[in-house]
């Protein structure tokens, strides 16, 4: 069944708002499926996005449980809580579930799927059936990855990066690694199709007046993420197919025996792997930008600078992959070093723009804003330690130690806080109900403190020489105390996550209606109802700036184009 979307003006010429509605050919045959059929057949981006969000949060919980097991094992130097083989499987699956199956899909399949069409004023994503397919591929990939726990030999155990030759069939035989490959192929295609949808929707379906430089920063970031997905994911897919061929078809692409080049895996993997971490980070940069602007009652500071910084980050990120390979001895160190150091510049621009957005504002400390600022602080530490890793001599003694583990956990835990900010901020828009703020604040503090309690000792452990991916450390009992602190931090985060689940259940029962715009937010999606109707908008306001809802609600407070202009000119006021 197809639906024809029309916009009609109401009230004749010069009307301020218009009607947007569907025009089915037959008035009677238009009903939406309900119940389980709805979840199986819907092509509505909001339903698909909600499926993605729930599934990815389930993956987060499983991966988080694995993390707690890892931290229990590492709390004593020579623990036999799990065997060495099981430990290898634990961190492999923890990393794989978190990176491939939680944070990426949550960002571009969950949040962006729901919010981007709303933010540009579109009735749906450009290719709704492709969108639905993306979800089913993602779900299939997730189940395939988890099946590894049920096969003889267990799941993959060669780290989430699966370096060859360790991942070839000689050193890692069995179904577990093959399931890992199949899972990544499925979820990889899922991501590619979502990338197509993001780009097409943003290029083609923007509402009248919603020019490229009036889109919210979250949407800009998701456009760049869509492009990065299209650049990077096919490379990973190709690399995985080649690995599969080595494992099963007797090719020797990565194995020395037939003239293969083992380090080729690392080049291909990281050519995807580094843009991937920006695919993970940029959506949450966007979330935090929108959240900070809303709760500071100010426009985004340095909007064009933000856009420029996002594009620069994406461009540079394609050229830095071998900074993960500095210790191989076979890569061009200065090239990757200068490119990696340069990425700090646009990231710094973003930081100062976030601060500038808060500066001089009137900051309301909702849970979403707390998580956004928690993100700022945590990402600051993580980003600074990343600068060390961009310097090869400094990387030589920190690579593959807990210093790196601490660096990327700082960064991804910050992204996790960005995710929480997104859920508390847009949750009311998507579901129509508010999440409880008091439980939310407790959730925030426990998570933020726990994250730092875990990560700060891990930096120190890395400097003391503790390598990553080791399950026992009997020759270094002096590492025990720091490991125990890290375990305490991880338990705090576990409790915080349970609190979040409690909040969801509690808020679901309390049912405090959100209304259209509970936060007095600025961007277009806050103009429609909560939750939005089937094709998103019954009416659209005039779009004259990057804050159409704000301009509609606060016609006397437009953004000042030059930071120091006292009085806005009459021509800048919202116009029909």
């Amino acid at each position, binding site marked *: 069944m197809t639906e024809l979307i029309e916009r009609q003006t109401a009230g004749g010429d010069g009307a301020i708002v218009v009607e947007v509605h569907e025009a089915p050919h037959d008035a009677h045959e238009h009903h939406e499926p309900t119940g389980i059929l709805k979840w199986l057949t819907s092509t509505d981006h909001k339903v698909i996005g909600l499926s993605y969000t729930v599934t990815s949060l389930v993956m987060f919980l499983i991966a988080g449980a694995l993390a707690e097991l890892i931290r229990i094992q590492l709390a004593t130097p020579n623990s036999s809580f799990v065997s060495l083989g099981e430990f290898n499987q634990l961190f492999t699956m923890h990393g794989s579930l978190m990176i491939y199956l939680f944070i990426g899909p949550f960002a571009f399949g969950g949040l962006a799927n729901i919010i981007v069409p709303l933010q540009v004023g579109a009735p749906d994503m450009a290719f709704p059936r492709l969108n639905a397919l993306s979800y089913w591929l993602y779900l299939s990939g997730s189940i395939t990855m988890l099946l590894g726990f049920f096969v003889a030999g267990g799941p993959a155990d060669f780290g989430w990066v699966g370096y060859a030759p360790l991942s070839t069939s000689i050193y890692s035989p069995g179904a577990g690694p093959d399931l890992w490959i199949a899972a990544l192929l499925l979820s990889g295609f899922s991501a590619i199709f979502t990338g197509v949808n993001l780009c097409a929707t943003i*290029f083609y379906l923007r509402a009248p007046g919603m020019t490229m430089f009036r889109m919210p920063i979250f949407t800009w970031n998701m456009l760049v993420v869509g492009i990065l997905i299209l650049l990077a994911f096919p490379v990973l897919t190709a690399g995985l197919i080649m690995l599969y061929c080595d494992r099963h078809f007797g090719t020797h692409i990565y194995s020395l025996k037939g003239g293969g080049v083992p380090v080729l895996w690392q080049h291909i993997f990281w050519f995807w792997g580094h843009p991937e971490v920006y695919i993970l980070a940029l959506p949450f940069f966007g979330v935090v930008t929108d959240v900070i602007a809303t709760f500071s009652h100010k426009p985004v500071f340095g909007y064009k600078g933000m856009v420029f910084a996002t594009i620069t980050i994406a461009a540079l990120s394609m050229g830095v992959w071998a900074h993960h390979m500095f210790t191989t001895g076979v890569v061009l160190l200065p090239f990757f070093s200068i490119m990696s150091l340069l990425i700090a510049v646009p990231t710094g621009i973003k930081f100062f723009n976030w601060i500038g957005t808060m500066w001089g504002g009137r900051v309301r400390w909702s849970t979403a804003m707390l998580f956004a600022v928690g993100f700022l602080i945590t990402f600051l530490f993580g980003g600074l330690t990343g600068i060390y890793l961009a310097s090869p001599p400094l990387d030589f003694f920190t690579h593959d130690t807990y210093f790196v583990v601490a660096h990327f956990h700082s960064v991804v835990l910050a992204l996790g806080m960005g995710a929480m900010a997104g859920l508390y901020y847009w949750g009311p828009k998507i579901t129509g109900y508010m999440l409880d703020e008091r439980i939310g604040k407790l959730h925030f503090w426990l998570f933020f403190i726990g994250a730092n309690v875990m990560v700060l000792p891990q930096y120190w452990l890395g400097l003391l020489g503790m390598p990553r991916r080791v399950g026992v450390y009997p020759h270094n009992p002096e590492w025990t105390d720091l490991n125990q602190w890290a375990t305490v931090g991880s338990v705090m985060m576990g409790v915080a996550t349970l609190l979040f689940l409690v909040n969801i259940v509690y808020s679901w029962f309390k049912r405090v209606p959100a209304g259209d715009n509970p936060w007095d937010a600025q961007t277009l999606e806050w103009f429609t109802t909560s939750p939005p109707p089937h094709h998103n908008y019954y009416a659209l306001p005039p779009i004259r700036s990057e804050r159409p809802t704000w301009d509609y609600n606060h016609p006397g407070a437009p953004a000042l184009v030059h930071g120091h202009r006292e009085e806005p000119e009459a021509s800048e006021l919202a116009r029909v």
Partner: protein
Amino acid sequence: MRAEAKLLIGLGLFFALCGVVYWIWSGENAGSVMLVASGLLGFLPGSYYLWWSNRMRVRASDRDDASIPDGAGVVETFPGSSIWPFTLGMGAFCAGLALVFGTWFALPAIGLVIWALLGAVVESRRGDPGSAH
């Protein structure tokens, strides 16, 4: 569509330039190929948009002074609920499992995929069921 064209072509140029510099400086094959290919991925859609942007009217969504009534009329035709994405997804799932567990799963995979593709194409052509198309 000029902004989109500039964005993509700009990225394409940057990657191609990086690829050339990287190749000259390091001579490493894999990275050079991947960077140049990334450049092509920017040029291909970018030049398409550039070509079109010189030949099309400026769209309402690209005009600063566009008003909502300017976008009146048919926006687009969107597919409604459809079982075919689910079917195709399950076919792909079976194909993935076939990679691991053997040809047992390849048969349902092929069947589901073909069925889903046929179903989706027929659904697109037929449009609204019960209409006179």
